[in-house]
């Protein structure tokens, strides 16, 4: 009987006392003697030729050590890499210099770099650099960028078209011609700014003596950054150490390889001194990736009974001025493969145009591709329901992939691992008291009050893997994860994981897994991550993969350790391993529970090695590289209830119910936290957040004064519940919970607002549903 079972226990996050009392070890906290500070001069123009750069005034300033232009760094740094080379798409790579050499292509593109004794002087020097530009016409909108005569970002990339990706399954034209109902709409999934609490930064310390570069930086995937830094600096990987232990959030924005970190590394090597560069929030807003920014043309074919027979999508993805590291994969694979959502839609036809514009590059942002697919489907299914006079819950139920069809192979070629979609819908309907709510809605409408109920029944792909699939999709990396479990002579355990949590709480959940597997106290388990010198290799934390893939690697490594411990115990107890049972951290002889050894005793013997047989190596440690057979597919139903004030257009949130199925749950408190945060972010996309550019490519929402991230007072209280459908893909049956909230909530909120506005005949408003947009829509229909 396992009295210490921690799987499923709502343990408080062990990282929190450190983080919330200011004792975290973030990049900017690291102090090295002799450190110089770096600041970047950025282009104020969206598109311009650099005519001349005068750095003389800056160089002459007291405290300024060096000034670099793009030309100065050409030999020291290869271009910023793109690592998702999607095949069969005519992909054209963008030559992307860390510091622009001849041309700038977005507001925020680096044009010069100052190195100084302190940050204030560095900023003064940045302002003293005089750059003469020949300003060129800019293009911001992806559809306009493809038009003939549009400004061209690159001579070698006609029409600014970086790629055209296709996924055509089945005969859509036939389905369309036969359809009883046809709907065509244009939907906008607007641009967002990830806004991690900690901006990006790096402390690069090159040691001219040893030829080693150590770089502390804000990374979701330190080993990948080591590999890429090696590629761009020419230093061998063996001479680079990347450390990113505490990272203050990322949401995908700390996956890419960026100019800033590269420049810091190159300059540290050049000057032989530590170089610190920490982004300001304003820099973060222009020079760290943005997310989403899709224009979608959607055709839905259906029967009168609500059955959807086909989906066709033509999407224009705004890639920004350069192709960021993983960017091409986001609007293609991560979007197109999910276009059937939770529904048994047989025919999918998808064309995606990746378009370059004079804007900040886009890349993976929490959900990455899946929110774009989910929003499209969930919005269209609501429009279809209204067209047919069906209840939005019932039309979803009608189209669900039934639970007896799992594992389910989608037309796009994915294999949905496990699911019971209807169960989440039923539970959510019950929690929100649906029938009553509809009655209340009808009554309130009589009084001139407008409440709306919005659904989102989603499925998403996470635990991004396996490596074979990654290869087929052109992703220049594997999608496995590694873990090393080292048991010390005292029985205490150090775990080295290739996952790199930066807010997800794996220091806690991983320790729970290990404590259960090895029967050791939770406190005895130490989780080490984010240091390439300590962890053998890692792919990192993104795509809700840390627990499903990194956790699985960990469990597999624990099982190797336990298997060896069992052999040692058997030898010492003079029985065969099969004769031993293991409970509560103790091996004992089956049928003779008094004859046994604790795990700690075995660990000590493993290291003393006094009595080990020749075929057992001393020590107790194992490494496992886990490459899963498949992704995992969490799903669920979110229902949002709002009231809209038609006089001002303001939306008030009355209720929010989320019933998610993320498989087995290791720590419900942490999963709730992930779901809460995800809902907040997705809800914010629906009604608050909006990265707005003017026609000249100036970012108008360039600070937190204009870009509305959600504050607690702007959110409803969430009712969170779960169903549990374990996945067969990993030994723990866990799916992943990092992105469900973001993916599910956006359409639930928009659908709720549109439902509230139904009496005005409003069928759609593009996001964000700001008060003014709602007010205008109401006014238009009322007049």
């Amino acid at each position, binding site marked *: 009987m396992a009295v210490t079972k921690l799987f499923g226990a709502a343990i408080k996050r062990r990282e929190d006392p450190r983080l919330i009392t200011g004792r975290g070890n973030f990049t900017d906290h690291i102090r090295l003697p002799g450190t110089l500070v770096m600041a970047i001069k950025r282009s104020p123009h969206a598109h311009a030729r650099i005519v001349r750069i005068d750095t003389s005034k800056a160089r002459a300033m007291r405290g300024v050590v060096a000034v670099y232009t793009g030309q100065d760094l050409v030999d020291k740094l290869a271009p910023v890499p793109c690592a998702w080379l999607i095949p069969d798409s005519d992909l054209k790579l963008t030559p992307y210099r860390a510091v622009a050499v001849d041309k700038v292509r977005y507001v925020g593109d680096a044009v010069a770099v100052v190195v100084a004794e302190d*940050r*204030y002087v*560095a*900023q*003064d020097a940045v*302002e003293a650099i005089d750059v003469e530009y020949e300003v060129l016409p800019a293009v911001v909108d992806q559809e306009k960028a493809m038009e003939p005569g549009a400004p061209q970002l690159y001579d070698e990339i006609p029409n600014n078209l970086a790629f055209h990706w296709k996924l055509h399954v089945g005969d859509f034209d036939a389905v369309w011609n036969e359809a009883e109902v046809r709907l065509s709409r244009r939907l906008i999934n607007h641009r967002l700014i990830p806004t991690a609490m900690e901006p990006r930064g790096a402390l690069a310390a090159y040691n001219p003596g040893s030829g080693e570069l150590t770089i502390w930086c804000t990374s979701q995937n330190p080993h990948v950054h080591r590999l890429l830094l090696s590629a761009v600096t020419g230093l061998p990987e063996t001479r680079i150490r990347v450390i990113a232990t505490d990272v203050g959030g990322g949401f995908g924005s700390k996956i890419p390889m960026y100019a800033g970190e590269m420049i810091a590394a190159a300059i540290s090597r050049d000057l032989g001194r530590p170089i610190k560069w920490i982004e*300001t*929030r*304003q820099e973060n807003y222009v020079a760290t990736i943005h997310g989403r920014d899709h224009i979608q043309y959607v055709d839905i074919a259906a029967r009168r009974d609500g059955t959807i027979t086909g989906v066709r999508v033509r999407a224009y993805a705004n890639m920004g001025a350069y192709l960021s590291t993983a960017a091409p994969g986001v609007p293609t694979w991560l979007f197109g493969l999910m276009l059937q959502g939770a529904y048994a839609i047989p025919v999918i036809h998808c064309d995606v145009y990746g378009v370059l514009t004079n804007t900040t590059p886009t890349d993976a942002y929490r959900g990455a591709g899946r929110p774009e697919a989910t929003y499209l489907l969930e919005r269209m299914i609501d429009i279809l329901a209204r067209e047919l006079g069906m209840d939005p819950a019932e039309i979803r139920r009608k189209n669900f992939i039934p639970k007896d069809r799992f594992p389910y192979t989608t037309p796009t070629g994915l294999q949905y691992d496990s699911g019971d979609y209807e169960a989440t819908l039923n539970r959510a309907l019950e929690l929100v008291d649906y029938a009553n709510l509809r009655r209340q809605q009808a009554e309130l409408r009589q009084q001139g009050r407008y409440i709306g109920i919005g659904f989102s029944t989603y499925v998403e792909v996470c635990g991004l893997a396996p490596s074979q699939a990654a290869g087929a999709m052109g992703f220049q990396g594997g999608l496995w994860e590694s873990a090393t479990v080292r048991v010390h002579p005292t029985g205490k355990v150090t775990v080295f994981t290739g996952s790199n949590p930066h807010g997800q709480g794996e220091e806690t959940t991983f320790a729970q897994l290990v404590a259960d597997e090895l029967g050791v106290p939770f406190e005895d388990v130490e989780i080490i991550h984010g240091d390439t010198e300590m962890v053998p290799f890692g792919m990192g934390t993104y795509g809700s993969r840390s627990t499903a893939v990194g956790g699985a690697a960990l469990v597999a490594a624990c099982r190797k350790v336990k298997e060896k411990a069992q052999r040692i115990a058997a030898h010492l107890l003079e029985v065969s391993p099969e004769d031993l049972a293991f409970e509560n951290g103790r091996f004992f002889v089956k049928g003779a529970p008094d004859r046994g050894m604790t795990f700690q005793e075995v660990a000590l013997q493993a290291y003393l090695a006094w009595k080990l047989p020749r075929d057992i190596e001393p020590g107790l440690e194992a490494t496992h590289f886990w490459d899963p057979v498949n992704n995992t597919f969490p799903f669920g139903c979110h229902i949002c209830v709002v009231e809209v004030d038609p*006089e*001002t257009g*303001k939306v008030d949130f009355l209720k929010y119910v989320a019933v998610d199925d993320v498989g087995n749950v290791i720590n419900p408190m942490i999963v709730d936290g992930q779901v809460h945060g995800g809902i907040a972010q997705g809800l914010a996309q629906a009604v*608050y957040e*909006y990265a*707005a550019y003017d026609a000249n490519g100036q970012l*108008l*929402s360039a600070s*937190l*004064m*204009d*870009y*509305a*991230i*959600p*504050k607690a007072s*702007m959110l409803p209280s969430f009712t969170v519940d779960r169903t549990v459908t374990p996945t067969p893909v990993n030994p723990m049956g866990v799916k992943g919970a990092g992105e469900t909230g973001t993916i599910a909530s956006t359409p639930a909120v928009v659908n709720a607002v549109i439902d509230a506005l139904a009496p005005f005949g409003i069928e759609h408003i593009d996001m964000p549903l*700001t*008060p*003014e947009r709602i*007010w*205008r829509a109401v006014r238009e229909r009322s007049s």
Partner: protein
Amino acid sequence: MYPSTFTYYRAGSVQEALKLLVENPDAKLLAGGHSLIPAMKLRLASPSALIDISRVPELAGIRDAGDRIVIGATTRYDDIQRSELVRQVLPILPEAIDVIGDLQVRNMGTIGGSLAHADPAADLPAVVLALGAELKAVGPDGERTIPADQFFVDLFTTALQPNEILTEISFPKPPARTGMSYQKFANPASGYAVVGAAAVVTLGEDGKVAAVRVGVTGAGPYAVRRQNVEQALVGQEPTAAAIEAASQLASEGMTFNSDIFASDEYRAHLTRVFVKRALTRAVERARG
């Protein structure tokens, strides 16, 4: 995020602060620092010197001056909000302060700093207009009193001279049967007012409007009084219809700001709506 170099002075008295201002013509007074320091960090302001007046004893505090309440310029929002006297007599002040920024901002920000800064989206300018406050300033040439109506001149511009210090704000105590309310439509990003409307209504014994003052902030380049609305209501029975009709005038003759969150047209609409809401609530309160 990194201001340019400046000298810091801490004034011990108003006289010392004035002297420092004369000696450092490029200097700025520092009160709560919650508008000035962000501007300096973004290098939107680069004063050569700061003269900290936040610890000058005679500039802070709330006092009952018979028929008036006088609040020192460097009195913090939080102290105003906690003042029993203010809560009793001028409840619109705590009502408005309650929706300014967050706790840290209210702990640091000062009433004088907010008024002197004259941010077009700040809350208190509308309130001092509606309360008919008087603002006292001292400069090298002595002291003068500026009625709130004449204080706000343009975007971030007041009637204060660069070498003047705002010392106190004096509010008349309202007569019986007065109700007041501040209604704000906050920008979801900044929390500042997209539109904020303050209304102070005094009813006669007959239940009709005896006096009314309305101030609007956020909508245009600077906070303004809406006399046209006031005139339409005085002497009227304050019915919903009368308030609605008067509020329709609120946007007349104004210029409106426009930004990514709210166009000028929408701000004009919000001005009418929020003036109506403030008046409605003030009348409810005046009726008791």
